[in-house]
């Protein structure tokens, strides 16, 4: 069905920039609408300077065809980009981001507000955002009425949590609407990447979100490998897969414990808090860092996994499986816990689809999407991992899903440890090709991690776009709160457990 206006490519590859169809703006927007109408998703949509004007790129993903699609358009710096957010809500935040980063005027956007309160990414073209923007100061959506009140929370929260601002419109205990304003964690990562790769780039990529060191590290490595034509040894792919699933296990376990804690069920909360650490320690067995720092390097892995390490991991996985099952099993056998999880924070499948949710929040609504299977990369091209979904879209679905995914990850790691391929664990990455666009998607524990690099004629990054799964999912949390009691916010929030720094970049 797709027109010739989209260049199809596979995950982890790069294409010459000139091969990407450059459409007239109207046709470009129509192609995005047409594709999303036919089940494609928007993985990335961003602008980059091109002479005195801007070039827009849109990366689409088709599960049905197992391919990605790229298309481009040119827009003059003083022209207005017509918004298609009303017709295609999943691009809404991308359009806001383009307005903020490029200073482009967006015409007809229903919800045009700051995304990160950042200065424009590119000096020169574009109108620019006023310098005096203060984080969290914007026009929040307000509900008017006799007994309506507003609750403002953050940026500093009541725990060891990242900062963000939440604005609730409440009627008594009931939340009519939640609006989330972020940007407090903005460190300028995409700005750093311009002109790269720099010697510091790998460190910054691993710290986009520290809890997703492997997910983002792998995406960055895939970009470099695609641009330099570097082959990754089979042994390295297997170790990367083990690391990615360990990351998933640590975080899912932590979330299971935190969800139990938020409904006041301390046994599972306590046990999972400790078992999470066991998984982090397994990552440290591989590379010395509990978060996998330095493990993923372009061309392979920075550390081999010798038979002793593999044996140690195998026995620790077996123990952790037993203890995690024991801890989590308590949840399903405690009616007071289930009563708090069921029918709380429900997102409908339709809403999830429209917003373009990814990861566990999407799969919890019955959306069967997972990059590991739909656009396989690395080891997942050889070894499949079953994708789990739930249907109810509530906190219970997102909790159950985490446990079921953890089980699959445990199986996967055991399988990989048994059959670790022999050979080298790292190849040297070569020189980076110029005038290319490279795409890399991974399935981090929160969902789809997307990196897109556009190189200039000398092989430096003209633009490096990062889309953390949280970028797609924060609006899902806002929708989950509609009609809920405000006291259920922590529980709903935990069931999404989104990244502030991954969003803020």
């Amino acid at each position: 069905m797709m027109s010739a206006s989209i260049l199809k490519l596979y995950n982890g590859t790069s294409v010459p920039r000139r091969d990407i169809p450059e459409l007239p703006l109207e046709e470009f927007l129509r192609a995005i609408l047409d594709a999303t109408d036919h089940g494609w998703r928007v993985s990335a949509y961003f602008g980059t300077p091109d002479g005195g004007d801007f070039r827009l790129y849109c990366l689409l993903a088709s599960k049905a065809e197992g391919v990605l699609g790229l298309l481009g358009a040119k827009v003059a710096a003083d022209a207005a980009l017509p918004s298609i957010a009303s017709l295609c809500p999943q691009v809404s935040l991308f359009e806001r981001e383009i307005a903020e980063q490029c200073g482009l005027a967006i015409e007809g956007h229903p919800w045009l507000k700051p995304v990160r309160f950042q200065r424009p990414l590119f000096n020169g073209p574009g109108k620019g955002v006023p310098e005096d923007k203060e984080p969290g100061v914007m026009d929040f959506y307000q509900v008017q009425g006799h007994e309506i009140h507003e609750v403002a929370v953050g940026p500093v929260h009541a725990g060891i949590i990242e900062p963000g601002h939440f604005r609730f419109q409440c009627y008594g205990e009931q939340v009519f609407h939640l609006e989330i304003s972020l940007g407090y964690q903005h460190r300028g990562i995409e700005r750093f990447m311009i002109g790269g790769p720099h010697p510091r780039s790998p460190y910054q990529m691993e710290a986009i979100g520290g809890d997703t060191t492997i997910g983002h590290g792998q995406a960055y490595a895939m970009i470099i490998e695609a641009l330099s034509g570097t082959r990754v040894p089979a042994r390295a792919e297997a170790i990367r897969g083990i690391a990615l699933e360990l990351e998933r296990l640590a975080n899912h376990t932590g979330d299971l414990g935190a969800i139990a804690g938020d409904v006041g069920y301390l046994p599972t909360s306590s046990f999972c808090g400790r078992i999470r650490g066991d998984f982090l320690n397994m990552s440290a067995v591989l590379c010395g860092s509990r978060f996998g720092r330095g493990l993923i390097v372009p061309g392979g892995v920075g550390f081999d996994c010798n038979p002793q390490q593999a044996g140690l991991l195998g026995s620790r996985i077996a123990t952790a499986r037993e203890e995690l099952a024991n801890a989590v099993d308590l949840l399903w056998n405690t009616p007071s816990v289930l009563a708090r999880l069921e029918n709380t924070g429900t997102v409908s499948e339709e809403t999830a689809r429209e917003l373009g949710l990814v990861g566990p929040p999407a799969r919890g609504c019955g959306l069967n999407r997972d990059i590991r299977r739909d656009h396989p990369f690395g080891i997942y091209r050889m070894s499949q991992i079953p994708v789990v979904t739930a249907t109810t879209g509530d906190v219970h679905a997102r909790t159950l899903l985490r446990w079921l995914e953890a089980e699959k990850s445990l199986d996967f790691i055991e399988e990989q440890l048994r059959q670790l391929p022999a050979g080298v664990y790292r190849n040297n990455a070569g020189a980076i090709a110029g005038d290319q666009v490279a795409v890399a998607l991974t399935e981090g524990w929160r969902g789809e991690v997307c990196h897109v690099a556009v190189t200039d004629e000398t092989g430096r990054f003209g633009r490096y776009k990062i889309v953390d799964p949280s970028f797609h999912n924060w609006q899902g949390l806002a929708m989950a709160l509609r009609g809920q009691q405000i006291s259920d916010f922590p529980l709903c929030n935990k069931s999404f457990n989104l990244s502030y720094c991954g969003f803020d970049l």
Partner: protein
Amino acid sequence: MIRAILARAKQGHRTTKYPKEPAQLPELLRGYPRLNSAACPEGCRECIDACPYGAISRTPVLSIDMGKCLFCSACSRACSHGAIEMTCDAALAANKREELIVREGEERRMARALDAKMLALFGRSLKFREVSAAGCNACEADTNVLSTIGWDLGRFGIQFVASPRHADGLWVTGPVSENMYQALLLTYEAIPAPKIVVACGACAINGGPFLDSPECRNGIDNIFPVDLYIPGCPPHPVTILDGLLRLLDKMG
């Protein structure tokens, strides 16, 4: 109920015995550097050039600034003479910024206890308000982990609290983004004096991976007087706990 009790029995008592017994650390942990300038050939810059954050210098003895170091071990891998090794020693915290610089031949300067007056105030009960100021959630996670049953920070009288009004100290992670600067200052001001400030992780000490970002302030060193610097990217929980226990004179 019976299931929960059985599970409790199965899961057992698993709190670390540290500091009474040595901590169990991963073999590959990259911790306190061991330097040997005698191995360095004339004019060799292998380690210095390998560090993208300028943590290493040679004058002519080697030194590493643990405040800038991300403990990636690129230096020791680049060195073909065995002059730098990152050991499995997790005791890294210090009281002063300059004490984070490990210079060969100089005495090791670990974190010291608070003075008698502060120790009388906080030695038995120390409450922190944590502020993540553009942290990547790794330092936050490994600070958080200390409150789990695996570490049980509460047994030392240390606790993280919700309100700065209830806190004795400020615990900062992250390089301090411009967008968090104001909120960080307000939180500091809200804590009653006298107060303690801890910079946890490379970002809070010196900007970490985001050193010299125009969107950040290279950590809190130029913002507040700091009582404890905890190096690492992120620091291992043992590094954090070790620093805290030294500060409160609880290692013995």
